[in-house]
């Protein structure tokens, strides 16, 4: 019986690989990539202002405490929660677009396994974890909770971020 199960696994595996291979090869380039023309970007000041507004509890507090409109404040919080989820999802889509960006200048020598590649992967996974955790928190508790860990205590993450920041500063100085 076990032999039959494993034989079935072998056949199913081969068929699955064939189907996936066919689909991966026949797909039009960039078909899976979403249209991100309006997706947020950290470089876009308007989007950042919007996020400040969405995640800022002062409007709801003002309605509830100073104007004494608790129901209106609740409605505002519910609306802000919806906006916060939309904003975070859009940010994730925008990030995925960056993660899917191909490198133009490919060298012959493989770069995989280098320290730099691991650091970049760490940044990608860290963001993915943070944004998913943030979505979970916003969905569960609303947009006015601070429950996301910073990871700044991990030396590896701090080092990689510092390194990229230093490079960015050096680049901006040289372009000036």
């Amino acid at each position, binding site marked *: 019986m076990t032999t039959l199960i494993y*034989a079935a696994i072998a056949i199913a595996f081969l068929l699955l690989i064939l189907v996936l291979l066919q689909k991966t090869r026949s797909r039009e380039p960039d078909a899976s990539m979403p249209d991100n023309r309006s997706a947020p970007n950290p470089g876009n000041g308007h989007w950042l202002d919007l996020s400040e507004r969405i995640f800022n509890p002062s409007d709801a507090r003002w309605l509830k405490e100073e104007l004494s409109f608790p129901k209106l404040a609740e409605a505002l919080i519910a609306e802000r929660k919806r906006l916060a989820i939309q904003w975070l999802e859009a940010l994730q889509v925008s990030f995925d677009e960056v993660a899917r960006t*191909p490198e133009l200048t490919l060298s012959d020598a493989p770069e995989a396994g280098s320290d730099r590649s691991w650091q970049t992967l760490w940044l*990608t996974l860290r963001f993915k974890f943070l944004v998913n955790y943030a979505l979970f928190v916003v969905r569960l508790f609303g947009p006015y909770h601070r429950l996301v860990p910073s990871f700044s205590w991990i030396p590896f993450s701090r080092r990689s971020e510092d390194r990229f*920041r230093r490079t960015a500063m050096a680049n901006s100085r040289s372009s000036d």
Partner: protein
Amino acid sequence: MGERGSCGACPSRAGSMHILGMVISFCVFLLGGLLILRGAASKLIRLFPLFYSYIIYDFCGSLGMYLIYWRDPHLYPSAYWIYYLVSILVEFAVLVEISDQIFRIFPAIRNLGRALTIVISVALGLVYILPAILGSTHRRQALFDFALRASVTKAIILVVLFYVARHYGSELGRNVAGLMFGFAIYLAINIAINAIGKAFKPALGANILWVMSPLASMLCLLVWTLSLWKLAPIPSVHTIAPGAGRDSEAVALELTRFNSELTKLLHK
């Protein structure tokens, strides 16, 4: 392995299977040599270093096994099993190569495949492969179990890599697709023959393994030789829209910016 018939000159089934196994093994040896020569000629060795390291290991290993077989046949069975077990582990290099190649053009997730391969290998090694070895009372059972579960682990990794590659819209070139398909054929046959070898009597199991194991290698090498005959361009590189590609430095900076902005926002 591959016992000969007891009636001397008359060709028994075991004897013919033995010869068939030897012929297929020799074809595998020749195909391995051809693949290395083509790799050197088309400069693919530089682009697929781990894969060609494995092929060279396999080629040299087969050569060593032939030498042992001719010089000291009594030593051959134990040498075969050691080589077989080491090869099961070395085959993970092919998976690492595939995982590196799939995400090679994406600087943000260049090591994602390698990380997935390592994590899945370690996790399944601890919870799926190791208990089978430690729990087996017979050495033969343990060997087949180890080979079978290692093949299933590799198959799972391959499927996960395929799925993630599709998720990120990675276009597989002819070289990488062939590498994956060839390895999938090899793994599927190995899963089947190890399951059969485990279930049947030792002599029959050994005969099946003697013929089918090199047959799996031959089919796999045939696909690899055809797909790696010459360097095929990665489709994605040719379909990048003007302005869509960036260098790895710019991507890393963008990722850092995304991370800092999100962290800053969530700490308010």
